[in-house]
């Protein structure tokens, strides 16, 4: 059961992600990003992080993606034009990927592939809203409050950035 879910969700996640990056229509990109986020939320559930899955759907797939779509509509962006091919950039990006493909397996080798297998209901960490809430309001309380300030600053920043000069 666990295997089936994992492989299906993983396949969906990767396909959606590739679509986000590969397609040139911004609206398609955005919709595929939504599907990527939802697949990820589902993967969170397989990891028994239920609260995070909910947050992922509500905040990410909901609020943030609405923002993206809103901007797409506002700016009325057309299908992206292909730019000139810049060889240094291609070489650089190629190098990045070569390095990444060499480095990442090495990084993974530090973790136990053949470690404990995934079995639902055996998680030592319950990921319910209650458990996370406890942590957020006790050990991570100050950080949580700081996040509030961060969001406030972001809000003010957005307002300042988007205000037209004539309104000043």
């Amino acid at each position, binding site marked *: 059961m666990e295997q089936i879910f994992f492989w299906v969700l993983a396949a969906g*996640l990767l396909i959606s992600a590739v679509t986000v990056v590969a397609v040139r229509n911004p609206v398609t990109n955005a919709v595929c990003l939504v599907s*990527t986020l939802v697949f990820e939320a589902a993967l969170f559930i397989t990891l028994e992080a239920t609260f*995070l899955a909910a947050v*992922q759907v509500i905040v990410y797939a909901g609020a943030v993606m609405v*923002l993206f779509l809103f901007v797409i509509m506002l*700016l009325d962006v057309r299908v992206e034009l292909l730019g000139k091919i810049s060889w240094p950039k291609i070489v650089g990006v190629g190098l990045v990927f070569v390095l990444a493909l060499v480095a990442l397996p090495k990084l993974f080798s530090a973790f136990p*592939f053949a*470690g404990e297998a995934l079995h639902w209901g055996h998680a030592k*960490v319950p990921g319910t809203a209650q458990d996370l809430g406890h942590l957020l309001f006790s050990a991570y309380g100050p950080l949580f409050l700081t*996040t509030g300030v961060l969001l406030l600053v972001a809000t003010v920043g957005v307002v300042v950035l988007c205000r037209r000069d004539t309104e000043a």
Partner: protein
Amino acid sequence: MGGEITLGHYLVLSGALFLIGLAGVLLRRSLLVVMMSLELLLNAANLALVAVGRFQGIPDPQVAVFFVITVAAAEAALGLAILVAIFRIKKTTAADQMASLRF
């Protein structure tokens, strides 16, 4: 194929997602798509965090992911605001058109 699902599977999945996002960030011209790819990067990291937390039996990564989501929301809001502001001036969202900080 087959066999049990372990932490390694999730990490490889996360790595693959990260590489896809990286490609988007580095290669796409449209700043909108670049920002979407940035979200992919963040999600790859989130996935790795939650997986490690689940298999190692520690709750803190989940809290971290919670914060990452919050920060990502703020980032998206600000980034898009900047994008809108730039678009008003440049009338484009192409990354290679924004080179006024050149030497």
